[in-house]
């Protein structure tokens, strides 16, 4: 089989398989798969409102995916994207309502606050990893819980209630223009920032000496040390950059979707989905963008399945999980194919 053919066939087959198995699940549960998938399609592309909402949903996934992918590429497992995202959310929301500034300053300042908060939250596991060899998975998981409860407590203190004030208009990423073209969806300018972030990550990793060092340390600390790189510094920096992406993801929720932050009874899940997004995107910046598009589209489209086709949310969750599962397996299939061909080459 030629490479090109494989590249086209594998994803086609895997998506088709996901759709078929999802259809079987719907059929067994007594719902029409055709209606279900039409509803899913309409939930994504059906009207301008849904398109707007889908893009809005994709935006934080891009950041969460980039955060996970950046850490992966530099040899780290950042399971703490969720926590970094939550603290970023709070920081952006706070700056958004506590200051009175012109828009040109206010938005960048709020974004900066989110980046700093997320980066700081990731700095701690980075420091512990670099200096004391504490595994970052443990620390980042624990930092998630700390973030959740610290943020809830902070909201209670700041607002004396359930949620913070709404951010000022000057800090909002929303715009009447976007609302008008998408029929009042919550689409905001964050998607532009997300695309910029994708390009920035690509640029850092593929063009700069810093990116070269980060990757080198990620792949082989020993050789990097031999080559004169500062291993600890690079580990910490990798973690912080990852945390900055996550924090900005939180800013999207604060300055875009919600305009404030409410007490949370559970994690948002965006940070954890970010792991899947990163893996779907093969940890490549542009791959992450596509992974986030798939994730966000299915998530938002899935909302329309109970609405339009009367399929219960539980079944919808299963169907969506199946599609993602098969896309991911398609990737595995491809990797397996690549391995085999590589092995053959090595024999030569």
């Amino acid at each position, binding site marked *: 089989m030629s490479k090109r053919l494989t590249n*086209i066939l594998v994803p086609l087959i895997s998506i088709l398989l996901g759709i078929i198995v999802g259809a079987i699940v719907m059929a067994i549960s007594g719902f029409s798969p055709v209606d279900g998938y039409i509803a899913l399609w309409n939930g994504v592309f059906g009207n301008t409102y849904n398109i707007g909402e889908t893009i809005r949903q994709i935006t934080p996934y891009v950041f969460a995916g980039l955060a996970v992918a950046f850490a992966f590429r530099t040899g780290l497992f950042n399971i703490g994207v969720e926590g970094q995202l939550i603290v970023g959310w709070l920081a952006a929301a706070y700056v958004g309502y506590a200051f009175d500034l012109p828009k040109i300053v206010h938005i960048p300042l709020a974004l900066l606050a989110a980046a700093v908060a997320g980066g700081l939250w990731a700095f701690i596991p980075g420091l512990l990893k670099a200096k004391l060899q504490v595994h970052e998975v443990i620390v980042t998981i624990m930092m998630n819980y700390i973030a959740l409860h610290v943020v809830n407590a902070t909201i209670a203190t700041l607002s004396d209630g*359930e*949620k913070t004030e*709404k951010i000022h208009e000057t800090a909002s990423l929303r715009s009447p223009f976007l609302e008008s073209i998408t029929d009042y969806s919550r689409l905001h300018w964050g998607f532009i920032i997300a695309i910029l972030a994708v390009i920035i990550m690509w640029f850092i990793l593929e063009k700069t000496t810093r990116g070269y060092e980060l990757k080198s340390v990620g792949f082989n600390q020993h050789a990097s040390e031999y080559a004169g790189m500062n291993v600890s510094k690079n580990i910490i920096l990798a973690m912080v950059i990852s945390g900055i992406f996550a924090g900005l993801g939180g800013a999207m929720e604060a300055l875009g979707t919600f305009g404030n932050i409410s007490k949370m*009874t*559970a994690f948002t899940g965006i940070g954890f989905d970010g792991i899947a997004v990163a893996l779907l*995107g093969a940890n490549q910046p542009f791959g992450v963008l596509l992974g986030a598009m798939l994730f966000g589209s299915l998530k938002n489209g899935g909302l329309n399945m109970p609405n339009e086709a*009367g399929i219960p949310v539980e079944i919808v969750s299963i169907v969506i999980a199946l599609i993602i599962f098969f896309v991911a397996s398609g990737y595995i299939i491809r990797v397996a194919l690549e391995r085999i061909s590589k092995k053959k080459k090595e024999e030569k």
Partner: protein
Amino acid sequence: MKKRKIGLALSALLASGTLLAACGNDDNASDTKKDDKKSFSVAMVTDTGGIDDRSFNQSTWEGIEKFGKDNGLSKGNNGYDYLQSASESDYNTNLNSLIRRNFDLVFAVGFNLHDSVVEVAKQQKDAKIAIIDSVVEGQDNVASIMFKANEASYLAGAAAALQSKTGKIGFIGGMESDIIDGFEAGFVAGAKAANPKVKVDVQYAGSFGDAAKGQAIAKRMYDSGSDIIFHAAGGTGNGLFTEAKERKKKDPKADVWVIGVDRDQYDEGKVDDKTNVTFTSVLKRVDIAAEDVAKQSKDGKFPGGKTITLGLKDNGVDLADSHGVITSDTQKKIDEYKEKIIKGEITVPEKPEK
């Protein structure tokens, strides 16, 4: 390598697109014209608790279902329906979806939906939205429905204080908020009024959906001598029922009682055919309220921009049938309190004393 991956994912998206498009002979429900309608349709958006939370969302839905059946509607477009929210970001989308399907009245259940209701109401000026347990001001197309849960809680507190054998009772709250504060304040005030010496153990779980935590708190409270525990904690309260039932199963004579919330939770307290741990329930007749508002709206009297507050006087809140657990002596006292509250002789606090 990189290029290939991008190409791959692109083709994947395209593939899914074509496939779905092929199946999609678009008969979008939201295109239904307003003129086609014959009847008054109602729908609701749940909060993240879900439709079968055995509490709030479920009560509202029961009211809507009753309204629907009484008016010969069926589930679906032009009838009655609900959408569940899996996360907070779904509220806006779900409200929008229902409005786009031209439901005449959309209920938003719970104070969590407040911001979303405000936002959507501003955008969709023709829509009629009723929000439960929260007040939206300055929007003519939003009706707010509030309950004086503190009044019924007062009665529950009094009953519990009168019948507690240990002189110690408990209160489990979900998360601290104005609404739950009312439950706590009423309960404690009623208990103290009936028996100034009674001790009330108050604890918040920090969640409305954590049954395990609820059970842990219940265990601690029963262990430390509380015999009647009231919960205003949604799904977290299910853990309280579990703990009480387990204790009752081990020792049928054990004095463990639960006061349910929002709807009659008698069924939740069932151990076997003869035994039940439910003392009574503090009813918020969300179902009646929902049905009422739906009826009014159908008759063209949608209370837009107004806040409807329902108390004991309006039968909006009450205590459920105790199935004989509450003695007639106690019942007499409770009836007296109820009378006084309705007459305004007793003012039940809305905030707990700090």
